[in-house]
């Protein structure tokens, strides 16, 4: 399907002699939000790393935005139009919020000062918390603020594909909701999103489709709503207890 933004086709990934993904195929259509779910060591982060060119497939092919990315460095994949919100946020701690945002726009550095100022203004409008932290070192922000910054930084790129790795990790429930609101906001702006997440409820609420990974194999795939509403799938793969607890939180 050449029109897809991401096509992972029958891929095997190894770390040394340890195999992390077995014959995994994932595709993301334009404008779609796709979630890859699974527990620890299920291979979901490896899936994102595959798309970003951080790991190379031993078998199978990976196409991103119309190009086979075999042999491309991560920076070259980014240049295709891929933005990334890495696991654990990974903001540049000794740079100010402003400088971090500029790093997000690194690939647009030739577009001129005015357009970048405009992009910065947009990002601050999307994430207003960052405005008052503008000149502060990113390392001094709270975890939730850092996640906001990482999202704003990725948005600065105006990516055609946004890869999000575990956005809710280590955040308080209040912040998780705000982060997911922000993800929904980006989705509404037409960004194609591939996200990896451990806690299924929020991810399935925002995603169109989802894949569930287990020990490096794809166990289930389908429409997000269908997966969320199928009790047997929830029990078998997604952890029933996590669901009920989260859901009572929402009430």
């Amino acid at each position, binding site marked *: 399907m050449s029109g897809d933004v991401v096509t992972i086709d029958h891929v095997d990934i190894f770390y040394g002699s340890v195999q992390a993904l077995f014959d995994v195929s994932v595709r993301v259509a334009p404008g779609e939000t796709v979630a890859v779910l699974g527990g620890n060591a299920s291979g979901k982060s490896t899936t994102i790393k595959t798309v970003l060119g*951080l790991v190379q497939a031993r078998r199978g092919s990976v196409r991103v935005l119309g190009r086979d990315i075999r042999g491309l460095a991560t920076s070259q994949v980014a240049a295709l139009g891929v933005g990334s919100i*890495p696991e654990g946020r990974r903001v*540049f701690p000794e740079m100010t919020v402003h400088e971090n945002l500029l790093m997000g726009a690194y690939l647009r*550095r030739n577009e001129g000062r005015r357009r970048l100022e405009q992009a910065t203004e947009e990002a601050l409008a999307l994430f207003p918390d960052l405005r008052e932290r503008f000149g502060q070192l990113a390392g001094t922000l709270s975890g939730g603020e850092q996640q906001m910054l990482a999202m704003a930084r990725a948005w600065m*790129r105006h990516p055609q594909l946004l890869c999000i790795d575990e956005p809710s990790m280590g955040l308080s429930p209040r912040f998780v909701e705000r982060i997911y609101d922000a993800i929904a906001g980006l989705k509404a702006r037409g960004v194609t999103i591939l996200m990896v997440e451990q806690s299924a409820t929020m991810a399935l609420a925002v995603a169109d489709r989802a894949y569930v990974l287990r020990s490096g194999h794809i166990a289930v795939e389908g429409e997000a709503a269908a997966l969320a509403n199928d009790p047997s799938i929830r029990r078998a793969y997604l952890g029933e207890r996590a669901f009920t607890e989260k859901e009572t939180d929402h009430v």
Partner: protein
Amino acid sequence: MVDFFSQIINGLAIGNVYALLAIGFALVFGVANLINFAQGSLFMLGGYLTFTGVSYLGLPLLPAALLGILLTTGIGVALDWACLRPIQRGPRIAPLLATLALAVIIDSTAELVWSPNTQGFPNPMADQAWTVGNAFISAVDLLILATGIVCIVSLTLFLKYTWTGRALRATAMDPEAAQQMGVNVAAMRTLTFGLAGLLGGIGGVLIGLYYQSIWPTMGIPFGLKGFTAALLGGISSIPGAIAGGLLLGIFESLTSGYLGSLYRNMVAYSLLLLVLFFRPQGLFGARGLDALGGAQAAAGMVPSTSLMASAFSPVTSRIYTLAGWPALAVLVLAVLYPFVADRTWEHIGTLAAIFSLLAVSLTVVAGSAGQISVGHAALFGVGAYTAALLGVACDLPIELLLVAAGTMGAIAAIACGVVAVRLSGHVIVMATLASGLILHSVFLSWIDVTRGPMGVRGIPPPSVGLLGGFSITDNAGHYWLSLAVLALALFLTGRLLQSNVGRTWRAIREDRLAAVAAGVPAVRYLLMAFAVSGFLAGAAGALYAHLLAFIAPGDFFILASFIVLTMVVLGGLGNLTGAVFGAVLLIVLTEVLREFGEFRMVAYGLVLLLAIMFRPNGLLGSK
């Protein structure tokens, strides 16, 4: 009368050069995560290439300097491409040892090309100086200050306000995240090594002007002081590096002004040790550096993975060792060796046994306990001086002298170890290097006892108490004595490494935090490793002094430490058989290469570099 203000100006000038070198260290450490020992060599090359431009090509000073600095920049980049990049994913210690090997290769090549002697450096401003009040200010001081400030300011602006500068900083903070922003991390690395070469080259030219002379080993003291300055400032911080450089310059200048220039180096290296001991994160080391894995990781405050562990695929190379009957068979052959060797080869055999003992000593602390020591020759020297001075003063049997030399070696090792055991990774190398240099300058300057550069002459032949005071005068006798000591040491060390103690050392090496969490008193065990190692090195020194009957400080300089380290790395860290194998191989190689004379050090450097690049776990495998 020393004028305070003059000393300050002078200190600021020299301090600016230290700052330039320190920035080079900080940049490379940040981006490539290694301490570049070759930084001092690039500095030296800057001076020499400029000198060549003026003296051989007849260029005026300024174009010659620009050309020299440009070439140094290129060499900095080339070194990374050719030697360091290929081993990026190797064992963590590999790049560090590789830069050490590169430094030796470059320095000794410089000796071959430009002669080991000090050369005059052209300085058209030599006579221009002014007196302001009591202060004496020379044009060179002002030039250095101005150049330093221009470099520092433009670099700071570059890093702060340009896209490339920001990308460079981002790469230093988090290369993986920087990549995802579209930053070409490999290009940033090239830029970093280029900048380090550039700053080093500029520093070399400035120092050439300052002293109006250059010498091939000038990179060692200036490199070390540049590193000291970087460390003072917290190793990965640019403003810290600048402040550290200026502080060190002023401190040194005041020391040499008020105490005498003899103390200049000793004070600088002691300052390095003090900082490592009390504030391994640097004077200005901020909490923010943690994110870089900066000072904390460098200083080993954060327990890191094993030095020998590889970042990606664990290297499972085969380990070769000799034990039991095969070892005994080799020993029998070794005992019979003098019956087939002539006098010269008997002497070489003795040297091989002594250096094997020294290599065994180093492999205990560097291999088994994972504390890479680059000052080992100084411990060897402590033993040699102890045995020599006692031997000259009174008539003692060699057994007693060996024990005395070993004990003094152990004491010196513990003293060095007290600083080193708190550190790990790259910084421990610096600490042991500084200890070695301090001891070397003690040999050199404590003239009442060591007789300074003259050395100790007329050391009597060893008399063996067990044989009723039998005096050894022939080469075969020396050989058997050394072999006996080596065999005993190997037997005992082998037992020790297989015991609980050896296992604990390896546990600390592999994961110090886990070992401590399991209740291991890591510091005590590591000090024990230093003591054992120092004892063996001291005993080797005693044998050496009595074999040659004459010792001088030059025998125990960095190069000797480097040779022993090469032996150990070549044989495979932590592998006793490998240590002996490496020592014998290099001693024989020295003999074979003798006709090449000065090329020998270059050859040593190349052997080490190639070994690291192609067999990072040594010929016989690390254990």
